[in-house]
């Protein structure tokens, strides 16, 4: 049916979606960070495999960046921040975990249907990759929407970025420009995250964004 290349790409991209579901399932902050590190590792493997089958050596750099920054530096830094700020370590979710999982399933199905309809003409590997990438992006969005802890919202956003990196590597031959920009955005997001987490902690004694709602200004 399909070659081994396709199967392994399918395996890695599917694992990324699976790990996104695992991210949604977590209810403790340290475990969340570990699963996010796993997410980044799977992404790095997936990008490296794409680099191998597309014969695009610059993608190895992207894989290395993903591995170094997202799998090691950022989880360690967030871990330290959590310890230092003494952030409450249970994650409160909006709606139960079961409901979130079902919504996640629905979003994955939606992403599959939409991308398969829209990409009739493109290559097999690219379509597959895009479908999975959109699923990861939507699952990241779902995570941002259903979490009340600022750190978990940020992790949701970073998993969304991982989905974008997957999409960009699947698009054959996309120039280094976008890869640099994605790496850039990691750095800047990191800085902004750091600044805001410090400020939020400084101003409120919690990183629960529900506490921020009191200061929402007039409603509307």
């Amino acid at each position, binding site marked *: 049916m399909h070659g081994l290349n396709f199967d392994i790409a399918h395996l890695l991209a599917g694992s990324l979606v699976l790990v996104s579901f695992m991210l949604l399932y977590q209810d403790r902050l340290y475990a969340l960070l570990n699963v996010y590190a796993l997410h980044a590792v799977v992404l790095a493997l997936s990008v490296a495999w794409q680099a191998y089958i597309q014969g695009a050596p610059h993608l190895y750099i992207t894989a290395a960046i993903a591995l170094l920054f997202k799998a090691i530096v950022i989880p360690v830094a967030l871990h330290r921040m959590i310890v230092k700020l003494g952030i409450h370590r249970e994650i409160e979710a909006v709606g139960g975990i079961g409901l979130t999982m079902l919504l996640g399933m629905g979003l994955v199905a939606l992403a599959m249907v*939409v*991308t398969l*309809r*829209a*990409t*009739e*003409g*493109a*290559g097999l590997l*690219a379509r597959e990759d*895009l479908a999975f*990438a*959109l699923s990861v*992006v939507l699952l990241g*969005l779902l995570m*941002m929407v259903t979490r009340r802890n*600022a750190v978990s*919202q940020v992790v949701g*956003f970073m998993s*969304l*970025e991982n989905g*974008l990196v997957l*999409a*960009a590597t*699947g*698009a*054959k*031959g*996309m*120039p280094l*420009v*976008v890869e640099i*920009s*994605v790496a*850039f*955005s990691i750095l*800047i*997001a990191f800085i*902004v995250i750091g*600044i*805001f987490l410090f*400020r*939020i902690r*400084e*101003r*409120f004694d919690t990183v629960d*964004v529900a506490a*921020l*709602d009191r*200061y*929402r*200004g*007039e409603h*509307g």
Partner: protein
Amino acid sequence: MSFDTVTLLFLIPALAAVVIALMPGSKLSAYVNAGTSFLTFLAALSLLWVDRPAPGAYVLVDELNTIFVVLITFVAFTTSVFSATYVEYELEAGRVTPAFLKLYHALYQVLTLCFNLALLSNNIGVMWVAIELATLTTVVMVGIYRTHAAIEAAWKYFILASVGIALALFGTILVYMAAEPVMGAGLNAMVWTNLVANAAMLEPAMLNLAFVFLLLGYGTKIGLFPLHAWLPDAHAEGPTPISAVLSGLLLNVALYALLRCKMLLAGNPEALAPGPLMIGMGLVSLLFGAFMLYRRRDIKRLFAYSSIEHMGLITFAFGLGGPIANFAGLLHMALHSLTKSAIFFAVGDISQVKGTQKIADMGGLTSTNPLIGWGLVIGVAAIAGLPPLGIFTSEFLVVSTTLAKAPLLALPLVLGLLVAIGALFLQLNRIAFGEPRGANHKVKCSYVPMTLHLGLVLCAGVYLPASLVAWFHVVAKLLG
């Protein structure tokens, strides 16, 4: 010679940012900021006369973005003059520290660089990068006051803006994926001029999907309903110059990006017509903004919703398409930039005089501070679309084209505009006329930027130079 102009437009802000960051002490940073903004404006003006460089892989200079660059650098310059005096006061009031002042000015230059990059780029990837960096810079600048409300506003802005950026990136990737089979892999498939040339050969379904994502992503930056949630808070809680920057500059640059995408999609006859989508979102934003103008109690929030309303109107105009509507949209965009920033300059003065942003605590401005009060009155009259100020022209053109092309849509359009006029004058009455209320501190801001902008808007309403009109017509035709 001409190519150097473009390089200058990138180089000046970049160097200025570095200089400000490395300068010891912060007293001079405001003046460096204003000075370099003026230089950037001059460089942009020169684009009007020098020979245009051919579209390269990264840089494109055509009629559309020349106008934008000149406008943006001009408003950036006047805002930098305003902010030089404004933040001095804030420093004395203790709301910002000197270190943050330097950061603010350095970031302002970075912002200018990003805007220039976004406007002049021929590469959809670079355009995305520039807009993303600009957004992140403004996030930091919005949160620069360390109050609860500012941090909440900045956090909300960050989350929503990041989601918008991500969706826009996905759209960009999809455009590349649609282009790659036709134009070959690599840099070529991301160059906008090539994309437009080959638009008819790109796969329609993928272009549709890409446009949806691009509309959602850049639409978040423009502040279209329902993606507008960050706008009122960011305007209200950040420093006033940043409100002017957001309303006058960032929204326009995002709209420019959307226009480029619209032109791309319009080149493919089988793809979704981008017009109806833009008309729909624009109209809803217009009505939403107009109705929300009532019952607002914070002055900056009031004008933030007015921005949403006007961006909705502009999107509606561009969605309608055709030479007159496009002309009207361009004119409205330019005048809205000038007027809204003038209003925010006035609001900055007012908030310093009264010491508050709550409308209930201010009143009778025309008697206590006549210059600011009447400035605000003229500004609000302009933004409401009264003749002889410029915005009346553009609104009139939009309404007449709508009556000609799609008469049914004219009804909600006119309703929205009338509702907005009513609300604005109701609120204006409370602020500018009647018995004086609230405190009356001494003010240190310059009035020059505000009067300059309002003067330009008045001129534009009375007389538009023929060359400008011709230029707009050319661009309107480009937009299709």
